[in-house]
C-alpha cells in the first residue's frame, strides 16, 4: 500500500485509509444485530442478535520477573493426580484444568538479560537475525484480529524491574509494548466513556494529530532524498511509526462512537501493585468477557515488592537466597501469593458463562516465567503452566533437557497460536507443535 502514486497522496492519506478500510477488519456497526458479543451491553447479558453462536478464543499470558523456587514449584511425580508442592497448593481446586510442564525452555542463557525472550524465544539482541524478529506470542496472536475488538491486546503490569523488568511483550518491529501499570487507568481505558465534550475534544485532537502526521510524512520524504543507505533504513522506522500511529488513530476513531461496556463495578483506586493484583485480574476477566479485547498480557515485575509481605530484603534479594532457609521461606510466601491470585483468576473465568461453555474453556492461560532459577540466574527448565483453552489438562508433563524428546517452549506457543486461529506453522524457535498437547 504505497502512498506515493495515489492522487490522494498530497492531500489526505487518512482518507485513503478510511475509504479502503484495508488496514483492519472493521466490526459491523450498521445494525444493532451486527454487534458482536455484548458490546454496549451490561456484563453478562447480550444486546441484539449474535453474529454467530461460536465464541472466539482468548489468550492470557502471565509472567513474573524472578521465576519460582524450583523445589516448591515442580512436583516430584509426573502424570495425573500428582501432589502439588508448597508454592502451587492454591491450584488444587483447578488441578484438572491445567497442565504443568517440566523441561521446557528456549535453550538460551542470560539470566535477567534473557527475560525479554519469555514469550518469543528470541533475545532482543538476536532479533535482527530472525524472520519475525522477537515478536511475542501475544502480539502475534493480536496481529490476526485486525480491528475486531476495541483493543487488539492489553499489556498490563510492571513497567520496570531489575535490568528493565520482565519486558514481556514485543511487536514485530522490535518495540517493547509498554504496559498499563495501574488498575484505575486500566478501568478508565476499558469502561469510562468520555462525556460528549471530552469526546469532541478527543476527536478534535485526533484530527490535529492526523494533520500533523500528513505534514511530517512530507518532511520525512524530503529528508529521505538526502540520506545514504543506512540512514534511509533508519528513517524507515519513522515511516513505519507514522503508519502505526495512523492505524491507531483509525481504530480509536472507529470505536469512539461505540459506547464502552458497563462493567457493573466501581472504579478501583490505585494502592500498591501487590494489593492491586487481584483487581488487575478482575479487570482482565471483564475485558475478555465484554470482548473489549481477546488478548491480555500481565507482567509481574519490579513493583511486586517484598515489603508488602512484611519481608525485609527485597524481592530480588530474596531470590538470591543462597540456600538460607529464612530467605527461601520469604520467597515462597511471595510466590504462593502469586499463585493464589492466579487460582482466583481461573476460578473467576470458570464462573463466567461464555456461550456453550465457560470463559475458561475459551481462554488459554499461560502462567510462568522466563527465569528458571533466580539464585543461579539460569533460564532453563522454566516454570510453565497452561490452563483452559479447551486443551486436555490435568497432568504434570515432563520433557527431557536434551536428545530426542526435547521440546522447545516455542512449540507450546505454536500450538497455542494454531488453536487461537492463527495460520502459522512456525513461531520463534519452534520445531513443530508441542508433542503431548491435545
Amino acid at each position: 500500500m504505497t502512498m506515493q502514486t495515489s492522487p490522494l497522496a498530497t492531500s489526505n492519506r487518512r482518507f485513503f485509509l478510511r475509504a479502503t478500510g484495508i488496514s483492519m477488519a472493521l466490526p459491523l456497526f450498521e445494525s444493532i444485530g451486527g454487534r458482536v458479543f455484548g458490546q454496549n451491553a451490561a456484563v453478562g447479558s447480550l444486546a441484539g442478535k449474535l453474529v454467530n453462536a461460536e465464541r472466539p478464543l482468548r489468550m492470557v499470558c502471565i509472567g513474573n520477573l524472578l521465576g519460582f523456587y524450583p523445589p516448591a514449584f515442580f512436583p516430584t511425580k509426573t502424570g495425573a493426580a500428582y501432589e502439588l508442592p508448597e508454592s502451587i497448593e492454591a491450584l488444587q481446586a483447578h488441578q484438572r484444568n491445567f497442565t504443568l510442564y517440566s523441561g521446557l525452555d528456549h535453550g538460551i542463557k542470560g539470566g535477567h538479560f534473557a527475560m525479554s525472550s519469555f514469550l518469543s524465544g528470541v533475545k532482543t539482541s538476536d532479533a535482527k537475525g530472525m524472520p519475525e524478529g522477537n515478536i511475542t506470542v501475544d502480539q502475534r496472536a493480536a496481529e490476526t484480529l485486525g480491528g475486531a475488538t476495541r483493543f487488539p491486546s492489553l499489556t498490563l503490569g510492571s513497567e520496570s524491574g531489575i535490568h528493565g523488568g520482565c519486558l514481556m511483550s514485543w511487536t514485530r518491529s522490535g518495540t517493547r509494548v509498554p504496559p498499563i501499570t495501574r488498575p484505575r487507568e486500566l478501568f478508565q481505558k476499558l469502561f469510562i466513556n468520555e462525556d460528549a465534550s471530552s469526546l469532541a475534544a478527543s476527536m478534535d485532537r485526533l484530527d490535529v494529530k492526523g494533520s500533523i502526521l500528513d505534514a511530517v510524512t512530507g518532511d520525512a520524504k524530503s529528508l529521505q532524498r538526502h540520506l545514504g543507505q543506512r540512514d534511509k533504513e533508519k528513517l524507515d522506522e519513522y515511516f513505519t511509526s507514522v503508519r502505526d500511529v495512523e492505524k491507531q488513530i483509525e481504530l480509536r476513531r472507529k470505536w469512539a462512537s461505540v459506547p464502552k461496556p458497563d462493567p457493573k463495578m466501581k472504579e478501583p483506586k490505585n494502592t500498591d501493585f501487590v494489593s492491586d493484583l487481584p483487581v488487575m485480574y478482575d479487570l482482565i476477566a471483564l475485558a475478555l468477557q465484554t470482548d473489549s479485547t481477546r488478548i491480555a498480557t500481565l507482567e509481574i515485575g519490579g513493583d511486586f515488592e517484598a515489603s508488602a509481605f512484611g519481608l525485609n530484603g527485597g524481592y530480588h534479594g530474596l531470590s538470591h537466597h543462597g540456600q538460607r532457609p529464612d530467605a527461601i521461606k520469604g520467597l515462597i510466601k511471595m510466590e504462593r501469593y502469586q499463585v493464589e491470585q492466579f487460582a482466583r483468576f481461573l476460578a473467576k473465568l470458570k464462573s463466567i458463562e461464555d456461550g456453550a461453555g465457560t470463559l475458561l474453556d475459551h481462554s488459554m492461560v499461560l502462567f510462568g516465567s522466563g527465569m528458571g532459577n533466580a539464585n543461579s540466574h539460569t533460564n532453563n527448565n522454566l516454570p510453565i503452566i497452561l490452563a483452559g483453552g479447551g486443551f486436555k489438562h490435568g497432568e504434570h508433563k515432563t520433557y527431557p533437557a536434551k536428545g530426542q524428546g526435547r521440546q522447545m517452549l516455542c512449540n507450546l506457543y505454536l500450538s497455542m497460536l494454531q488453536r487461537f486461529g492463527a495460520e502459522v506453522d512456525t513461531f520463534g524457535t519452534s520445531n513443530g507443535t508441542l508433542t503431548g498437547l491435545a
Partner: protein
Amino acid sequence: MAHSLASLELLAQSLMLRSSFLLTGLVLVLEAQPLHAAAETPKLHHFLSTYCNDCHGAERQKGDRRFDQLELPASKVDTLIDIKDIVDQINLGEMPPKKSKQPSSEEQKAFIDQITAALTQGRQALASTGGSTVLRRLNRHEYLHTISDLFSLNMAALDLTTKFPRDQSAEHMENLGDVLQTSGYLLDQYLDAADAVVEKVFAQQKPVKEEAWHFTKNFRSDLKRKEKDYNNAHLLVEECMDSDKHTAGFGVIEDFVNGVPADGFYEVLVLVKAMNREHPYDPKWFGTDPREPFRLGIVPGDAKAGPLDLPQPQQPMLAEVALDDGEAKWFTMKIWLDAGHTPRFVFPNGPEDARGTWFKIAEQHKDLWDQFMDEDDKVKGKIGIVAARQITLHVHKHPHIRIDEVKIRGPIAETWPPASQQAVLGKEAFLPGKVRERLQSFADCAYRRKATEDEMNRLMAVADQRIQQGYSPLEGFKAALKAVLCSPGFVYLSQETQEGSNKLSSRALASRLSYFLWSTMPDAELMSQDLTKPEALLSQIRRMLLDKRSDALVAGFLDSWLNLRNLGGMPPDRGEFEEYYSKGFQEAFKTETRMFMRDLIDRDASLVNFLNSDYSFLNQPLATHYELGELGDPTRAHEFRRVSFKTDKRGGLLGMGSVLTITANGIETSPVTRGVFLLENILGTPPPPPPDDVPAIDPDVRGAKSIRELLSKHRESPNCYGCHQKIDPLGFALENFDAIGDWRPRIGKKKIGSSGELPSGEKFEDVAGLKKILVQRKDLFARMFTDRLLTYACGRRMEALDEATIERIVADLPKKQYGLRSLIEAVVNSEPFLSR
C-alpha cells in the same frame, strides 16, 4: 591481517555512499577471492580439519554440526553461533571427545585465542555501521533539555516523557544512532508531549492576578489518621524523605492540596521552629547528628500523581534552609511551582524512622499507657502505633520540625507575556498576520537550521486546516508548532556534510557539539560560528565547557560509561543498608563522582586521577561512610567539598560508593562481576562471555564456603583459567567493600583476603597495590576512556578504522599531562567527530 580486510570492507562501504559505480567494481573484486586473506584463517581451518571435520565435515555431520566450510572471517549470525559453539565445547573440555585425537595444550590455547578473536571480530562486523554515525534521534534526556531551552520553560517538576518507551542502549550508551529506534509508541508520545507543552505554554492568555493564602490551622501531619496532633494547630515533619515506612516525612497543607492556580514563581513564608534538637534519647534511635542544625526543604506535590504524604516521581528540592533553635522564626523562600502543584515541607537530615522511635519512646513511659491505649490495644496488651505517637507528642521531647503558619503569595508578576510565550513569539503579542514569520523563526530554531520553503508550506497547511475548521489563528499557529516538534527535522540530528566530502557541515557540527557538551540544542552564538574553522571550533569548545550546561556532559557521560543511571536498579537491602536511603547515598554517590569529573575538566587535570587520587568530593554522611571522620563544622554537614585524605583505601573510582554499588547486586558482592566491570570500563579489555553450559554457581552463602573457595573451580580448569585469571583477581581486590562500598575487614568470622596476581605476574596485596599497578598501565585506561568519549560524542561505536585516531590521541596525551579538558578538545577535533 583480518584487520586490513575489515578495513577494506569498511572502505568499500563508505565509498558506496558516494559513488555507486565504483561499488560494483570493488564488490566484484572482493567476491572473486574467497575471504581467506586473514593469516589466522588458514590456521583455524587447519585445526578444524585435523581435530573436528572427520565427525563434523563433508562425510558426517554429528550433532548436526558441520565445520569444514565455516565462513571465516565471520559475517553472518549463523557463523557466529557455530563459532561460539566451538569455543564453548573446547573450553569445557567436551570436544574433541576423549577417544579422539587430542590437540596439545599449546595448540589448543592458540586455537582458542584465534577463534575467540574471530568471534569478537565477527560480532564487530555485524554491528558495524561502516564507520559512520547512523541517523540519530534525540534520546529522552536530550528531548527534555531541548524542549526546555526551546520554550525557556522551567521543567524541574514537569516530565513530559514519563510514558515514553525506554531508550534502546548498547554498551550502556543511550545515544547511538544505529541503536536508538523510533516506534509508533514513541511517535504517539511525541504527539501527546507536543500537545501538552504547547498547550501549557499558551495556557495563560492574560496576566494572572496575584493571590495570597494564609494557613494557620487545620494542619494534619498524617493525612490518614483522624486524631488531632497539637489540636491540628501545627504542621509537623518528623523524619527524612526516604524512610522505609514513609510515615511522617512530608508536611502537606491540608487546605491547599489542589495547589497553585497557575505556573509561576511563588513566595512561601513559613513560621517554623526546630524542636528538641537536643533530646534525652539515644541518638542511635534517630540516626542523626544532634550537632547539625535541622534543615527544612520544600518539594512540589501533585495530588493527581499520587498520595501527597509519599515520595513522588518528580520532587526536586525547590528550596532548603537551616533552622535555628530558639523561638519560631519566619523564613521566606521563592520557588517555582507548576499549576496544580502544592508545596510540601520536608526534613532532609531528619530521623531515619519515626514510627520505630515512637514505640521506643512509649516504652519509656509505661505510666502513660493506661491513659492513651485504645480498646484494641488493651485487648492485645500492647501499645499500638496511634497510642505510641500520642504518648510521644504528649511527652514532647522528640526531635521534629514544627510549622506554625504558612503564607503563600503568587504568581509573582514577572514579564508579560510569560517567558515561554516570548520564546516563541518574540517581544510582541501574537498577531494573525505574522503567523508564517513566527513559525519560520520557531522552526529554524527547532530544526537547528533554516526551515525550507516546502517545510514551511506544510506547516502553514496544518495551521490553515485548523483555521478552516473554524478555529482561531492562534489555534492554527499552535497546531503548526506541535507539528514542528514531531517532524524528523526536530527529532533527528542532521547528517548534512560539506560539498563533496564526508565532513559535517558547520551547522551539523554545531548540533553534534551541542548535544555532546550540553545534551541540548545549540544556542544562537554556536549557530552563528563557522565551526569548520579550527580556531572558531576551539573557542566554542572552551566557552561551552565553562557554561553550566556542560554539567549535562558530566552526568550523561558518567551515566553511560559507568552505567550510573542504573544506580538503584538493584536497590540495596533496606534491612542491612538503611543508611543508603536515610542518608541519601544514591544521590550523594552520583554527586561525588560527578563533582570529581567536573573538577578534572575545570582544572584540565589528569584523568589518571580516576585510577587513584588522594582526594574526593564529599559531604559529611559520605565522609562518615568512608571512615574519614569529621569534616568540620556540623552546620555544613550537607555541603559537598573537596576533601584530601591520607588513606589509600579510598581515592579514585575504585574507592567510590557509586562504582562499588553499581557493581554489586544490592545484597552481596561478586568478584567476577566487579572484575568484569574493571576489565570493561577501566582497562578496556572486556573478557568474552562464559560458555553456555557452565553450571551456574548456585550461591550458597550459609557461610560454609567463601566466595574464593566457590570460585576456585576457575583455577582448576586450564580453559576457565584463561579468562578468569584476568577477571577474578581484580574483583577480589575489591572484596573488602560491601554492596554499598562500606569497608569490611571480614565476612562473618573469615578475614577477607584481597591479594592477587595479574596474568603479567604483577602481585598486589590489596586494593591500594592494585591501583598502583593500574596507574602504571595508564595508557590502557586512557585508550579505553578515549574510546568511550568518542563513542558518546559521535553517537556511534568505534571500529577498526578508528583505532588509528584513538592511538594518535592517546599518544598526544602526555604532552597535556593527560588533562581531561585537553582530551575533550582532542576528541572534538578528531576525524570521527568532524565527519559523518
